[in-house]
């Protein structure tokens, strides 16, 4: 179909109608360019949101206690609710669907930590082994806490990278004895965290050890667990039954908004995700609209072109051009222009996205704007097909030109 002669013919007409060709090409390139940039930006927003959730498990529920704000069963409002180990055990065993879980026992304020002559003030979190999953803690050396550490009340610690750097100056951390508020602990692991630096200045202790050593008794401040692959609805049910268990144990109104705070990441994430979906649909509509405008533009301009070339087409027919060859002449030009222009728009769009990605590298809500190459390519392919369709009607009109009328002397 595309012989050298065909190319020559197309090139001749393109060269002769530079402005028309450029305008047609521009409308197509613009359509693709906009589609790519819009889709890429949509993805950028999406990545930004995902980044926000990066350092915690997305499918997690976080429970923290508060102060009652409503009278309940003869009890005054304003009571401080203090969770204990039994609450945690009950939640984990009774709430259906709990996957990984941990309680948290905080030592308020930061604690002085010594190693030899080095010392610093760091936060302490006493947790269960499941905490590593919930915080997405990455163990770099050694190991995280395990069940045995808890059962035997071992005096072991897992420290953040920044602490390891500050205290050990690059020496192997495992096995080092550190003192936390004067009590001796053995370092069994070093971890990193995608969150901020505060997370890397953290020391994890077995919750049992910390409660006993630091006088916490059986108190805990927080209960957290992952919901596995629970749906949004299931996760809401889990949060609800968690609240009921705690309300029952501590005698407060389950509907009291201040007695217990539940942060359902599933819900948060879903809400963001559905907003993102909406944005994505919007972006597609706008993009496809732009594309359609490009297609209509191509069709229009090809129609004009055919009008302009009526006489030439008449001559060609008089010289023996078949209707088919006229259709091909017009169609191939349309397809060629849309292909080249579409590709140019694609490349330009990707370049702009890359530049944008570099410019916003430090922005958290808008990250890595990029477009699926398959989507980009299929958009271009679609446009080429559209170009063919856009060229088809003008081409058919061209083929129907009657030489006598085209050549009639005015």
């Amino acid at each position, binding site marked *: 179909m595309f012989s050298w002669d065909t190319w020559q013919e197309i090139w001749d007409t393109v060269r002769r109608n530079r402005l028309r060709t450029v305008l047609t090409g521009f409308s197509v390139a613009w359509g693709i360019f906009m589609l790519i940039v819009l889709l890429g930006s949509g993805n950028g927003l999406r990545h930004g949101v995902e980044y926000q959730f990066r350092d915690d498990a997305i499918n997690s529920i976080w429970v923290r206690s508060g102060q009652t704000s409503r009278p309940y069963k003869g009890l005054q409002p304003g009571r401080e609710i203090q969770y204990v180990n039994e609450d945690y055990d009950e939640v984990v065993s009774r709430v259906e669907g709990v996957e990984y879980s941990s309680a948290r026992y905080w030592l308020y304020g930061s604690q002085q930590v010594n190693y030899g002559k080095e010392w610093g003030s760091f936060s302490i979190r006493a947790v269960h082994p499941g905490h590593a999953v919930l915080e997405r803690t990455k163990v770099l050396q050694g190991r995280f806490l395990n069940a045995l550490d808890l059962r035997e009340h071992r005096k072991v610690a897992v420290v953040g990278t920044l602490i390891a750097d500050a205290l050990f100056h690059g020496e192997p951390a495992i096995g080092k004895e550190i003192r936390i508020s004067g009590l001796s602990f053995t370092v069994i692991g070093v971890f990193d965290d995608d969150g901020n630096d505060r997370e890397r200045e953290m020391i994890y202790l077995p919750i049992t050890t910390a409660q006993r050593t630091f006088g916490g008794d059986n108190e805990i401040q927080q209960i957290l667990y992952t919901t596995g692959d629970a749906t949004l609805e299931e996760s809401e049910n889990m949060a609800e039954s968690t609240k009921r268990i705690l309300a029952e144990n501590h005698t407060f109104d389950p509907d009291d908004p201040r007695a217990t705070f539940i942060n359902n990441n599933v819900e948060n994430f879903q809400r963001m995700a559905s907003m993102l979906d909406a944005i994505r649909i919007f972006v597609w509509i706008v993009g496809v609209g732009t594309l359609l405008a490009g297609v209509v533009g191509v069709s229009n301009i090809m129609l004009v072109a055919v009008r302009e070339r009526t006489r030439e087409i008449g001559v060609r*027919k008089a010289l*023996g051009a078949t209707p088919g060859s006229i259709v091909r002449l017009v169609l191939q030009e349309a397809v060629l222009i849309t292909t080249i222009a579409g590709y140019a728009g694609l490349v330009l769009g990707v370049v702009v996205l890359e530049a944008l990605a570099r410019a916003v590298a430090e922005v958290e809500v808008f990250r890595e704007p990029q477009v699926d190459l398959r989507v980009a390519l299929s958009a271009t392919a679609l446009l080429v097909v559209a170009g063919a369709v856009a060229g088809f009607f003008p081409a058919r009109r061209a083929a129907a030109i009657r030489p006598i009328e085209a050549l009639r002397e005015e």
Partner: protein
Amino acid sequence: MIRVRNLHKSYRMGSNRLHVLKGIDLDVAAGELVSVMGASGSGKSTLMNILGLLDRFDEGEYLLDGVDMDGLSETKAARFRSRYIGFVFQSFHLIPFKTAAENVALPLYYQGVPRRERNGMAADYLERVGLSDRAQHLPSELSGGQQQRVAIARALVARPKVLLADEPTGALDTGTSREVMEVLQSIQSEGVAVIIITHEHDIADMTDRIVHLVDGRIDWDRPHSRGRGLERDLARPRAALTGAAASGAPA
């Protein structure tokens, strides 16, 4: 070569029908040089379009080289045009963005002749019309006479059996008209039937046979000796009509 019997053609003009050709009988043999004359509106252009397969006819019979041309599809008509018929137009109709050589080669392109061969043949035919040195010029860089010679070369390059020329000298001055006519006369010897539509007596005088159309019918059709002038032909029978034909020149 051409055999036409009782050819009818009418156009629809709104609700009216305009009967343009009212039963034409015409035979043209290979190697004949015929001029078709007639006032404007006499149907000569319509006849040429039908002979050139650019238009269909309603009734009658048209055999081209013995093949019935009735009810051809567009594509088949295009094939026949490309193999049998060459056109020369009053306003040349060269393709403006193609050089003389490319214009001449175009009919061969539609015949599927390979490029190299095509260019060789185009060069040959340009030489025949004396324009080898203008092969790479665009039509806009050529004079009217040169353009028409290119157009003739283009009409001939596909070796047609019939050459149809519609007022080929209408846009040219007398001197160039003569040159163009000489080229057309020279083709005759190759067995091509040349049909020239004209209203100029000088041009008709350079052909061997004159067909005179009046109102969609052949008024008269007789051989002619070149250079004798048309006065005697026009003066002969049907005095009333000849007067009309003689004065009914330009439109």
